[in-house]
């Protein structure tokens, strides 16, 4: 590292990341869905299931944006364009034992992990039921404080080990979060304790209006793992196959006790930051244009189409099925009785309740 660049001027070795130390994000499929490696990491059926999960997330986000424009939803952060990150992550874990710890842009992955669709709607309606974790669901509620959940994931993974289990924890966050002490401190903890945690950073190139170069001078977020003593991987975050593959390996590593991995999913916020603040005011349209063809849904669809597993009819059927599912969940969510402040007082602590107003 850095040898070439510095040895001519210094008598000692300088530890630096040189351009040749920075890989391209690992892709398994090209943007047109062609396989770039010998064997796909997922079967066609698995790919189809993954595609369906991504489409469900996409349609859910789109539906909620529409509902939000009608005043029926509160501010939320859609995951449009980034679905492969959370879906690929969850496909690599076992929901009946492993944990998924979201930030706030991972609805697609959350649903796949077992979060009920109706709860998704309730969440975006501003209901506390969107934060309630039913028995058996291994997920923490969405987290509004950027990077606030990362240390919880580390404690959780560490605690599972202490309790004699080999379950793993996947935590998602953005590249903005990766500038925060609440990312670095627990990541460093995880290195020392070898907590079975996969740190998945969705580098979508924006933190509200702040562009990626303003966030850090490190060439990649993945390199930040070096500060904590564990491996980093840079993966094409719009490629479900690639995300799944690196996640699969990281999960295996964590499960066998070899500690954490930091994965940077190189992706792009094709949608808005949140329904309250698009964050796109100064976005370079040319940059955006390069990302649109990289849509993670399109890529898998093309791959499956080429294998005869995807066509207009299948698509239409799936869209209809998803729509019906969404409509049913939305109806269910609307039927839910509104929460009361009185009940909220009972959830502050088990005993005794607060002294009220």
């Amino acid at each position, binding site marked *: 590292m850095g040898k070439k660049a510095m040895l001519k001027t210094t008598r000692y070795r300088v530890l630096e990341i040189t351009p040749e130390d920075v890989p391209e994000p690992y892709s398994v499929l090209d943007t047109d869905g062609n396989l770039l490696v010998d064997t796909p990491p997922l079967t066609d059926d698995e790919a189809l299931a993954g595609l369906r999960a991504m489409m469900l997330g996409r349609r859910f986000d789109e539906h909620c944006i529409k509902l939000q424009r009608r005043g029926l939803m*509160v*501010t*939320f952060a859609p995951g449009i364009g980034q679905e492969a990150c959370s879906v690929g992550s969850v496909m690599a874990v076992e929901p009946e034992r492993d944990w998924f710890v979201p930030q*706030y842009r991972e609805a697609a992955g959350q649903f796949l992990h077992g979060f009920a669709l109706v709860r998704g709607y309730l969440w975006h*309606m*501003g*209901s*506390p039921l*969107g*934060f309630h974790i039913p028995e058996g669901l291994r997920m923490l509620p969405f987290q*509004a*404080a*950027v*990077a606030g959940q990362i240390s919880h994931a580390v404690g959780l993974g560490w605690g599972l080990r202490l309790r004699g289990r080999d379950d793993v924890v996947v935590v998602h966050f953005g590249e*903005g*979060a990766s*500038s*925060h*002490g*609440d990312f670095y401190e627990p990541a460093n903890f995880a290195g020392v304790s070898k907590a079975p945690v996969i740190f998945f950073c969705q580098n979508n190139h924006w*933190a*509200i*209006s*702040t*562009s990626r170069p*303003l*966030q*850090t001078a490190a060439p990649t977020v993945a390199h930040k793992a070096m500060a904590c003593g564990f491996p980093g991987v840079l993966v094409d975050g719009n490629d479900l196959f690639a995300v799944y593959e690196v996640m699969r390996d990281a999960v295996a590593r964590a499960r066998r006790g070899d500690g954490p991995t930091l994965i940077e999913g190189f992706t792009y916020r094709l949608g808005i930051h*949140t329904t*309250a*603040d698009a*964050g796109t*005011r*100064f976005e370079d349209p040319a940059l955006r244009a390069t990302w649109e063809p990289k849509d993670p849904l399109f890529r898998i669809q093309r791959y499956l189409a080429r294998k005869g597993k995807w066509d207009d009819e299948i698509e239409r059927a799936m869209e209809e099925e998803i729509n019906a599912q969404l409509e049913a969940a939305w109806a269910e969510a609307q039927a839910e009785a*509104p*929460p*009361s*402040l009185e009940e*909220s*007082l009972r*959830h*502050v602590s088990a005993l005794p309740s*607060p*002294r*009220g*107003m």
Partner: protein
Amino acid sequence: MSDMTMVEAIRSTLEAEMERDERVMILGEDVGQSGGVFRATDRLQERFGSARVVDTPLAEGAIVGAAVGLAIAGMVPVAEIQFMGFTHNAFNQIVEQLARVRYRSWGSLSAPVTLRMPCGGGVRAPEMHSDSFEAHLAHAPGLKMVAPSNPADAKGLLASAVRDPDPVIYIEPLRGYRLIRGEVPDGEHLVPLGKARVVREGTDCTVIAWSAAVEVVTAAAETAAQRGISVEVIDLRTLVPLDAETLWASVAKTGRGVIVHEASKTAGFAGEVIATILENEDAFFALHRPLVRVCGPDTPYPVQMLEPQYLIDEARVLAGIEKATQV
């Protein structure tokens, strides 16, 4: 005079202060290119360049800590924390460092930093984006703290804060950024730190508030007047240092008082106001009834569906006034 919203008053004052003194600079998350999530720094980067209006990485602790260093280097930083709850992510830098620069250097260094932040809820923001934690920052010797309720004070207090030789916490009423409008004096307009404002005179009961609550309280005072209760409304404007004299004079006159804040009750700032009022014998011996707190419940700020039940409205303030003015 010009008619302005809160956010316009803040933005134009920042602009004027940057024009007045080239050492004044702005840093924070999204303050530059986008002009802030509430547009309080809109177009200032265009105007003053990206060296003086800086989009920082996402790290509140480093924003505040860097502001300390920038100040020592001779700059006059105005740092923004995007939402008040996130001051907690920088709390050690605020309470142990920023607040103590002058004290711990035995007067030899100073940190003329203004720390701006929106406070409070009412706009259906995501959880943790509606918090009111003025009581935390009030208990940090070395910090002053202001919380304007209207555009004229927003201007006058912001200019005073920027020019103060020490750190000032500048609290903006989140739900009032666009909703609160008012006349703002043109040109130089300074409101001194440490002076409360009697919004409305009255003889039966003193009601004390700050920031967005002043509007609610003033409306309640009108209604109370119709019911025959003459309410004196005090807008604290500066929370630290507290304008005790104004509070004492008012309570000595009315003998009754209500303190209103959106923050949760236990260890909220109302306790300080009450304890301070009691420090004056005229005020104490004038008291006919206990001083009443109208505050948020002892829960975190809730998610959106619960907001209407959670927020303090006119009715709750009126109930407080009635309680305070019982015979």
